[in-house]
């Protein structure tokens, strides 16, 4: 009996027409549970931080000095790039392409990472009440980190680009395109659908393309090429890539309030 009920619930969840029902239940439950969970975390965090800080005092001090130097370098770089950004925005506007810096973003704090051992996700503290919705891209330090897959009232779940279900259409080099595929947390990401013997170099950055039914706005750095080769008789180049964003620094992320455009309805 319980097995039948479980299977029925799974069917309801996976069916596109009834998914909103299970999603609604999860949303209400998350809305009620999140504040309680946050309360417990607020109590436990200072204790954990104190113990961690006491144990790693030396390395934290060194890391702090390194971060201050990095912030100084970024300030100088930002000042230099202001002029270039203005010009680039104007060019992008002329081409009718959304430029990331002109899109509104919502800054969110990560509540937890990988709530399941079987998915590579993070939960952020912003939801529909803050304008965060399913499908929106999420960026972190250095580039794209993932996409919102579940949006509740006050929280959202983001699937990271390293998750096995993640697919991101990218462009690189001299107008080449491909798909960056997540392979799970234990394996390196790959770039697929790239023609054999495509001219590449290690460290080359891949950006979101406006192709792939425009799942992402164009121009967000996604990954850098790590290794590449074309096997004998292969129909595509074998490329491994690493995320451009630092996926170990996900305390704060930006949700880009950009939704994929609905596909045009075919006229009868």
């Amino acid at each position, binding site marked *: 009996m*319980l*097995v039948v*009920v*479980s*299977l*029925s*619930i*799974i069917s*309801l*969840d*996976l069916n596109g027409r009834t998914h909103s029902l*299970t999603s609604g*239940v*999860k949303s209400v*439950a*998350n809305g009620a*549970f999140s504040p*309680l*969970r946050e309360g*417990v*975390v607020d109590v*436990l965090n200072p204790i*954990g931080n104190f113990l961690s800080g006491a144990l790693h005092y030396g390395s934290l001090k060194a890391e702090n000095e390194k971060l201050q130097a990095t912030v100084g370098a970024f300030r100088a770089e930002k000042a230099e790039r202001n002029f270039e950004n203005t010009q680039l925005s104007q060019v992008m506007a002329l081409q009718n392409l959304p430029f990331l810096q002109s899109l509104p973003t919502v800054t969110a704090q990560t509540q*937890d*990472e*990988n*709530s*399941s*051992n*079987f*998915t*590579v*996700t993070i939960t952020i503290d912003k939801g529909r009440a803050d304008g965060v919705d399913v499908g929106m891209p999420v960026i972190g330090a250095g580039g794209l980190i993932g996409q919102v*897959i*579940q949006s509740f009232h006050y929280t959202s*779940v983001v*699937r990271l680009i390293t*998750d*096995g*279900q993640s697919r991101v259409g990218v462009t690189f080099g001299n107008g080449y395109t491909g798909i960056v595929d*997540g*392979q*799970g*947390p*234990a*394996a390196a990401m790959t770039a697929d659908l790239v023609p054999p013997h495509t001219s590449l170099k290690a460290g080359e950055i891949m950006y979101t393309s406006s192709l792939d039914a425009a799942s992402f706005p164009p121009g967000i750095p996604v990954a850098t090429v790590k290794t590449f080769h074309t096997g004998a008789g292969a129909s595509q180049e074998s490329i491994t890539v690493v995320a451009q964003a630092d996926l170990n620094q996900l305390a704060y992320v930006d949700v880009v309030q950009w939704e994929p455009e609905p596909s045009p309805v075919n006229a009868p």
Partner: protein
Amino acid sequence: MSARSIVRLTFVVFVALLVQSTVMLPLRFDGAHPDLLWLLPITAALLAGPQTGAIVGFWAGLAFDLVLPTPFGLSALVGCLLGYSVGAATAAVDKRAVWLKPVAALMGSVAADMLFAVLGAVLGQQQMVQIDFLSLFSVIAVSSIILVLPVNRLMRWAVTSEAHRRSLVSAQPAESGLW
């Protein structure tokens, strides 16, 4: 199952969910974290048999499904199958055996994770079988052996408190009869 047991079980599942999402999630070893969920049906099945194990597994799984990004109902399905299987497999075993709880926790948790991953992949979540199973099983095995005792203590309070009381009450006349 009495109303008191249901209330206590609800409390235990809620506490387990809270501990899982606040304490267990940050305890990450090689990318995997301990999982309290499977220990609930395992201990319930050891204490009160396969039916109670299945019921606890279903409701605990459903509660955990509310906060997991995996398909809704999948943990409930695996939880009730796990609870029933552990209860049925250990029906003929002496429940006082010292090795029973750690072995049941280890084997049950690893088997549940395997089933969870395979069923998830069957349901279209291919990423669920693209993980480092060696790390996952190592973490789950060690943590289950450590955590099964406190979870068993909680579950005993929730499931068998009344049965224990009844057995004590029924034992009293027999003992007094000796005198």
